[in-house]
């Protein structure tokens, strides 16, 4: 199964990169962990994100769209980075996540979220619905 692992932001990470020395240390530890993930065939993708002060939000309300510039409040609800892992089950994802060096200076969180897969829709997706969905996708793809 494929999971996305979010590195949740903190007040620190929202301030930008830490001082060089600390950053080197963190990069080393994280680099080692990433290497382990790669060598175990678990890592599919991953990257760090700049603080929300570089970001924008598009707010939807009915037909209206409003663009809001960062930074955004509530650091704990923001994302500072992510991985995509291919694992056998959530237990394995948790076991890997526990091995991750603390990605932040202070207390921090990783959040693991499985991707939807076709099986998840089970009987809710009848062949007719699937065909319709396929038709929609086909049109979207311009084919």
């Amino acid at each position, binding site marked *: 199964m494929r999971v996305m692992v979010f590195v949740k932001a903190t007040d620190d990470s929202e301030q930008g990169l830490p001082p060089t020395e600390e950053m080197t240390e963190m990069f080393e530890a994280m680099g080692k962990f990433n290497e382990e993930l790669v060598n175990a065939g678990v890592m599919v993708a991953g990257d760090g994100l700049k603080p929300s002060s570089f970001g924008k939000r598009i707010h939807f309300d009915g037909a209206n769209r409003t663009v809001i510039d960062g930074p955004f409040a509530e650091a704990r609800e923001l994302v500072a980075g992510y991985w995509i892992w291919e694992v056998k089950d959530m237990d*394995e994802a*948790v076991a890997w996540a526990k091995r991750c060096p603390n990605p932040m200076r202070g207390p921090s969180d990783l959040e693991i979220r499985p991707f939807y897969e076709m099986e998840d829709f089970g009987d809710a997706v009848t062949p007719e619905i699937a065909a319709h969905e396929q038709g929609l996708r086909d049109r979207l793809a311009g084919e």
Partner: protein
Amino acid sequence: MSAARLALAPAFADKARMAADPTHRAIEAVFRIERARLIGALARMTRDLDRAEELAQEALLIALTEWPKGGVPDNPGAWLTAAAKRRLIDGARHRSMRERKHAQIARELDAKYDMSAEALEAALDDPLGDELLGLIFAACHPVITSEARAALTLRLVGGLTVEEIARAFLSNEAAIAARITRAKKAIGKAGVAFEVPRGAELNARLPSVLEIVYLVFNEGYAATTGASLVRPPLCAEAQRLGRILAGLMPEQPEVLGLLALMEIQASRLAARSGPDGRFVPLTEQNRARWDQLLIRRGLNALDRAEALGGSDGPYALQAALAACHARARTAEATDWRRIAGLYDRLGQVMPSPVVELNRAVAHSMAFGPEAGLRLVDEIADAAMLRNYAPLPAARGDFLFRAGRHREARAAFEAAAALTGNERERDFLLGRAAACDG
């Protein structure tokens, strides 16, 4: 270990109880991550795969009693290996004690298996992944048949149960268990060392490893028998093996070529079967459903293989072919001339009637159906292709496109009679029926 016992090996703990206990499940997950590397390290010491597996299970049982008390150790792999080693040494001591003096034996054994903390750390950190790689090379050793190599690799490296392997290969558990037992015996008898081969030996044995990984992938991707067209778990397992190999041997272009090939092919898994389970050929697939993440990974691996000078390797060439399709936004945008050229090269480095058949298809797309017919007629008599459904299927397609519908119909019907896959048969009969229109 008997076949029956081997089949039961994963049932070391009552599964129902385990599933209900989060601590045990967490420990089991850590164990699964470490298992293959652990067995590799233990097999290197014992030269006995059954013993290595037993010791690994014993280490798990110890962890299941110890870890709930003190928590999961910082380096669980080292901890498990140390626990298993102690069991190994205790067992050896026990046996030797009957004949000789205790203290002397203990000294000898400690010298043989250096148990100091530093030595353990050094030996178990295994940054090069040598123990895991050594195990993979042993499981894929050419002394055993390719079916047995595949089963053994899935069992030891993938950690699949015998039941899971049997289901994946549509075989029964007893047959798979017997196959694995025979393979282990053959490895023991041949005195295979659980080391990573170097230099010329590495070059000689790597193809056999890659062959098994790709065999597992293909068994999942192009299910040749049964009702289902694809068996994604086997693809996922093969991709994982490929990624492990690419992580541990990043300088081997063909490892990267194989990984690229698998990633790009797997990117189409969702698009290969229609909503009714029917096979959808490449040119008719909805490309919006191709997994762009896997395509990117595949193209990246291919770039790395080519940068290492490996663009003429059989896997890299096949990956380059897959990449031509991956890069085309629509079927019409496919660069068939490039594909035809790549098949010309592939036919030289990997001569085979199947490659020639694909080459004929590529030439038909690049230069017209007559070009395809000319090439396919050159290989029609190859013994290997006599009962090979894709040959009359391709021929039918060329004939149809050349306007020779009656002959096309006969070719599609011949192909339908040859295929073992029900979904593919439906597809071919559909094409035969369409020749009337």
